[in-house]
Structure formats: structure tokens, C-alpha cells
């Protein structure tokens, strides 16, 4: 029984490696450190967002505001660096404080006003996108020597792949998230909350604190993703990263986390991100396929993984079925 929750994770990992092998078989040049390094760099902001989303989804909630938070962060940093002379690190600290407070406020509304997370974070999505518009409707370039320093940090692997700073940040976030989820009390509380609010409450899990912390984490990680995105593009634009929340949710689901909460792993999300990145890389390598195939393939993958989870759930409950039937008859 213990191995069933990990099975989706292993399947996601197997899917990724199998897909990568197939890609290499068709385009041998895809087997290079360049491709791997770009996979990490290009999906860094999405990966960091998806970690926050994994936390939220594990508790059975959802956070639709992350895409807007990323856009807001980018615009905020760009505007503040343009109009004032403060150091980017201070700006980073400031914007992280704002996004964490914003996430915490969302969590507080979800908990204390007993409103569905879906609607609360939807309003948050409009609010953050709107604030980004208010700051600037144009794309604001970032020209600061500190940005050049950060962007020039990379480790050149044999084969020419450049592992940049932002890819490293994403890996660090994933490792930190795994430690938090599996080695701290907070992590246990997250899983407990996802298993059922009432059960968790009876076990003595602090519901209010955990819920607020979860959304603050998601907001803060979206802020960090915004910083990474601003390093990636060297600009802040209020219309950027529209729909990133959906990509993040898709990555989490492909990674084997149940949207009803309680079951899932951050590592699965990591491979979910890699699979989605791989599809895009494949389309670039192929050259004849149009970009909309990305959406269709991701949709098919989502469907496959959902069905897989259904089959697994059915297979694990089938053994218990006679008992329930007996209980219902009596």
C-alpha cells in the first residue's frame, strides 16, 4: 500500500526519460549539455512558481494569482530601478515583502471569510495585474550593472552548456521545498490539511496559520519567480506571463499531485516542468510543427496522467470493494 502514492511520481520520471530518449533518437544533437542547460534556464521562473503551486494544491487549494504576481514583480522592479537609485537587492527585498504580504492576505481571506480559494485568488489575479498596469503600461527595460553581474554568472559545462544563476535558483528552491515538505512540522501540516480540514483540526494542526503560510509561500515564490523572470528578460512588462498559473497547475498535475490535495511530491512537479519544457524544445528542433501543438500535447498529457491516477485509485480501492458492498447491503 505504501508504494501507491509514489507510483505517479515514478511514472512521470519514466515518461520524461523515455520522451528525452525518443527526442535524442530523432535528433541526436538534443543530447547535449546545451539543451539541458537551456531547459533549466528557460523554465526557471515557471519551476519556482510551480513549487508554490504544489504547496497550495497539496492543501486542496488553488492560486490563480501567480501569473499576475510575476508580472507585477517585474514591472515593480523595473520602475523602481528606473525612478530611484536604490540597489536592486533592496528592490528585491521590498518586492518579496509585498508579494508575501499579498499571499498572506489571500490566505487570511480564504480562511477567515470562508470563501473558496478559487474566487479569492481570482480577485487577487485581477488586482495584481491591475497594479502592474497602474505602474506602467509600457515595457520598461532594466539597465543596471548589478543585473549584468547576475546575468554573467554561469558555469560552463563540457559541451558548451551554460548553467546560469536562475536555473540554479530554481534547483535550490526545489531542494528547499523538499526539505520543508518532508522534514519539518509545517510540511506535515500541509499534507494533513490536504487530507481533510476537519481531520487536520482534530489532530491539532493549526489551520489558520498553515493556510495563511501556504498562500504567503505561494505569493513569495511567485515574487521570486518574478525576480528571476526580470533577470531572464531584463525588462518589466505588465502584459507578460499571462496564463502562467495554468502552466504551473498543469505541471503540478502532470507531476502526479492530486488536485483534491493530500497526495503529491515536489519532485514530480520538477519533472512535470521538464516534460513541458521538452515538448517546446522538440517543437523548436523539429521546425515544421506550429506552436499550438504545444498546447494540444500538454492537454493530451494532462488527460493521460489524470486517467492514470484514476486507474491507480481504482486498482487500490478494488481490493476493498467487497467490504463496502457488504457494508452497504447490511
Amino acid at each position, binding site marked *: 500500500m505504501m508504494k501507491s502514492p509514489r507510483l505517479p511520481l515514478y511514472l512521470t520520471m519514466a515518461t520524461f526519460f523515455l520522451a528525452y530518449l525518443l527526442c535524442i533518437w530523432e535528433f541526436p544533437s538534443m543530447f547535449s549539455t546545451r539543451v539541458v542547460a537551456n531547459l533549466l534556464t528557460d523554465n526557471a521562473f515557471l519551476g519556482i512558481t510551480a513549487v508554490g503551486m504544489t504547496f497550495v494544491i497539496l492543501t486542496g487549494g*488553488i492560486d*490563480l494569482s501567480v501569473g499576475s504576481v510575476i508580472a507585477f514583480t517585474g514591472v515593480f522592479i523595473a520602475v523602481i530601478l528606473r525612478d530611484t537609485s536604490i540597489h536592486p537587492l533592496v528592490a528585491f527585498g521590498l518586492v518579496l515583502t509585498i508579494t508575501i504580504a499579498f499571499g498572506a492576505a489571500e490566505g487570511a481571506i480564504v480562511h*477567515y*471569510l*470562508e*470563501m*473558496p480559494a*478559487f*474566487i*479569492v485568488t*481570482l*480577485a*487577487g*489575479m*485581477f*488586482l495584481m*495585474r*491591475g*497594479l502592474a*498596469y*497602474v505602474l506602467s*503600461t509600457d515595457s520598461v527595460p532594466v539597465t543596471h550593472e548589478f543585473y549584468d553581474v547576475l546575468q554573467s554568472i554561469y558555469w560552463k559545462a563540457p559541451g558548451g552548456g551554460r548553467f546560469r544563476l536562475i536555473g540554479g535558483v530554481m534547483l535550490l528552491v526545489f531542494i528547499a521545498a523538499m526539505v520543508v515538505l518532508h522534514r519539518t512540522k509545517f510540511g506535515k501540516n500541509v499534507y494533513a490539511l490536504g487530507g481533510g480540514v476537519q481531520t487536520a483540526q482534530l489532530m491539532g494542526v493549526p489551520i489558520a496559520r498553515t493556510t495563511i503560510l501556504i498562500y504567503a509561500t505561494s505569493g513569495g515564490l511567485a515574487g521570486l519567480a518574478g525576480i528571476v523572470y526580470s533577470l531572464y528578460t531584463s525588462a518589466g512588462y505588465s502584459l507578460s506571463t499571462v496564463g502562467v498559473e*495554468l502552466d504551473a*497547475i*498543469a505541471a503540478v*498535475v502532470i507531476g502526479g499531485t492530486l*488536485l*483534491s490535495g493530500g497526495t503529491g511530491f515536489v519532485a514530480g512537479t520538477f519533472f512535470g516542468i521538464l516534460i513541458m519544457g521538452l515538448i517546446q524544445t522538440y517543437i523548436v528542433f523539429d521546425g515544421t510543427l*506550429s*506552436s*499550438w*501543438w*504545444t*498546447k*494540444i500535447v*500538454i*492537454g*493530451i498529457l*494532462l*488527460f493521460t496522467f*489524470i*486517467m492514470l491516477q*484514476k486507474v491507480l485509485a481504482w486498482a487500490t480501492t478494488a481490493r476493498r470493494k467487497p467490504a463496502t458492498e457488504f457494508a452497504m447491503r447490511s
Partner: protein
Amino acid sequence: MMSDTLRRIAPQLVILAVVILLNFIVFPGFFSIEFQNGRLFGNIIDVLNRGAPVALLATGMTLVIATKGIDLSVGAVMAIAGAVAASVVTAGGGWVPALLAALAAGLACGSWNGILVAIFRVQPIVATLVLMVAGRGIAQLITEGKIMTFINPGLIHLGAGTILGVPTPVWIWIIMGCLVTYVVRRTALGMLIEAIGINETSSRLAGINSRVLLVAVYLVTGFCAALAGVVVAADIKGADANNAGLWMELDAILAVVIGGNSLLGGRFSIVASLLGALIIQSVNSVILLSGMPPEFNLVIKALLIIVILFIQSPTVQHAIYLFRASTPPHAPTEERAEKSAEKSHKNNQTARESLS
């Protein structure tokens, strides 16, 4: 019966009146309606006309949400339907085959969602996420990535024309809303849908064929979304697979929630959802008419939504209820019974009705 309905939609009517009053304050000519070139012009007509897609989506979405479900794919279905209609007329077909093909596409999308939810027992939010992600890709596949423009007058009439001076989209959403309301309220269907939303297992044990009803509900939503997609495409004389119906699903869900329907399923009111759609459109109109910089649109909309949701949140409603109940000397047993009903969330509509 009539007074029950009125009491149910009273909060929405009050909010709508307040928003329309705001419209009147920022723009005194808001209520003036002119008749020129065989059609009515005026801000009220505009609100009714522009609100058509969200109102259409909200009609179907109300039923889905009443079964404790949600349909995230309606925006993508709109894009697909628009693309199908445009490709039929550009291939030389008339507007009737185009409309029928679009509606068939909507029904096909609806049945896909419905089968996933009802037969395979996938959570509605996940099941419809698949089509939400893939649907826009499918629509782009149909239009081959271009914005497909058309000049068929019959199809354009559905979005930009008038019947008896009133814009066609207004007719479409009012007729669709009345039709669905009539069907679910004149038969037992509405009650059965509510039963599924409150507790699906017990409704099944009570003999309700929940599978067929669930599929039917998603079919209706797909149908409504396809209509909305055709209206939007006809309005701009082209099918834009990327932007048609973008984020419309969120507006539709918002309309249903502003309409006081619980996302946890159960009792529903289509009229209230339609009022919710009108409230959203009136808010848009206030922001436009007040001449505020367009950058502020989303912020103001978000703040208004937060205020409306705050007023309707179960906690605040409960606090108001307790405040009201504590003033006159009541029979304590009855009060406690009502309080526990409110707490269990199964029936927060009753409390809301006893409030007003």
C-alpha cells in the same frame, strides 16, 4: 412563488441598482435611449449588448456549479465554436450550417467534459482544465494560427445586427436564459440538479440518474459557450483563436458567484447569475464612463469584486444574521436550529433569504 424569487435576487438587484446609480452619477446621460437608423442606441442597451457573452456563459455555468462542478473550458470552447463557424462560411457555407456546426462543436466539447466528469469520475476542475489548455490549440489548428475574417452578412447579423431595433445578442441571451430557466423550473430537473450538488451519493440512492443529468448539464454549458463564441466572432467579423473568450470563464464564474450561488453546489438561481453578469458589465461601464485612465480598470474591478464577495461571504452573512437575530426577542430553539443549518453550509441560502 413570485415573492420567493424576488427575495432571492434582492441583494443582486440592490447591487445592480447601486452600480447603475454610480453610472448615472459619473455620466448623467446614462439612461437616455435614442432610436436611430432602425436600432436603439444608449448606454443601457450597450450594457445589455456587451454583457451578452458573459450572460450566456453564466446561464450554463450556473447549472454546472449547482452540481458542485465547474467548467473552466468555456473560453476555449468559445474560441473553437468561433473558429468552426468562421471556417464554414469562408469555405462557402451559409450562416445556418455555420451556426449549426459551431453548436455541434460546442455540444461535442460539452459531452467530452460531461463524460470525463460523470463516467470517469474526474474532478470537474481537472477534467475541464484539459480542454481549457488543449482547446485553444485546437481552435488555432482550425484557423491555422490566423485570425479568420469573414463577410457573410447572416453570420455577422448574429453579433452586430438588430431585431426590432434591439441588438441580436441581447435577444439571444435573454431567450436562452428564459428557456433554460423555464425548463429547469417548470420540471423537476432543477430540483434534481440541486440534489446532485448537495449530495451526489444520496441523490443516486434516491433514484436520480446522476450520470445522465451531469452529462446533460455539461452539454448545456458547451451549447451556451458555443453560442457566446459565435456572437463574439460575429461581432468582430472574425475568429481570433488566441483572444476570443480569453478569461471569459473567470468572468462567468464571477457572475455566478456574485449571483449568490454557492460554489459548493446546491440551490441555484439563473436569474441571479444573469444579474451578476449585468453587474460585471455595469462595473465595466462605470469605469469607462468615469473617464478614469484605463490602467485603473482592473484595480477598481478587483476592489469592487472583493467588496461584493466580502458582503456575501458566509462569515459576514453569519455575523449579520446573529446581529439581526439578537435584537428582537426570538424563540431560542428555532434560532439555534437555523444557526446550525447556517453553520453546516449545506443551506446558506435559507439564511440569506431569512435575512432579507
